[in-house]
């Protein structure tokens, strides 16, 4: 049972990381690219690092892994938010199909 957890979570996490990357590459404007970057990457790192937990042999490694997970879980959305806020303050307008841009 515990051996199958990495087999499920790790490829799933890698797949979501890949999906987020494709989203960042393909979406039309900056604000829409924030979505895969913020949510996709956070989910991907959570899945991957949780998938690695059953493979841990020493308890220190487990503790470090949990620390990395918590740290990334907090900082990734924060950094994304900071980037979007900076872009907003900069005056970057969101992309719309019509040329008029209304936030």
């Amino acid at each position: 049972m515990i051996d199958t957890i990495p087999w499920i979570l790790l490829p799933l996490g890698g797949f979501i990381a890949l999906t987020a990357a494709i989203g960042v590459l393909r979406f039309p404007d900056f604000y829409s690219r924030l979505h895969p970057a913020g949510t996709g990457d956070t989910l991907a790192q959570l899945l991957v690092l949780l998938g690695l937990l059953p493979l841990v042999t020493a308890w220190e490694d487990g503790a470090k892994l949990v620390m990395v997970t918590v740290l990334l879980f907090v900082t990734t959305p924060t950094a994304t938010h900071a980037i979007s806020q900076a872009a907003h303050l900069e005056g970057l307008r969101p992309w719309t199909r019509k040329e008029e841009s209304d936030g």
Partner: protein
Amino acid sequence: MNPVLIASVLVLIGLALVLIRTLRGPGVFDRILGVNMIGTKAVILLCLLGFLEDRGGFLDIALLYALINFVGTIAILKFVEFRRLGA
């Protein structure tokens, strides 16, 4: 076949795609977003590589990265804002 290897190759391909966005990125913020995302993926990759061959010590570097990536992003944002708002 190894789940860790599958995941690391997937993450690495994702990293390459984000790199294309970073290189191409029309605006500064696209590049910053790309760099931040590459940092996150690098942390994930470091953790994965540590378990690929069952070597210790990788997680310390991953921890360091996770911290530096965040601080670096904030520093870059501060620079950009300072310059633009000053002009």
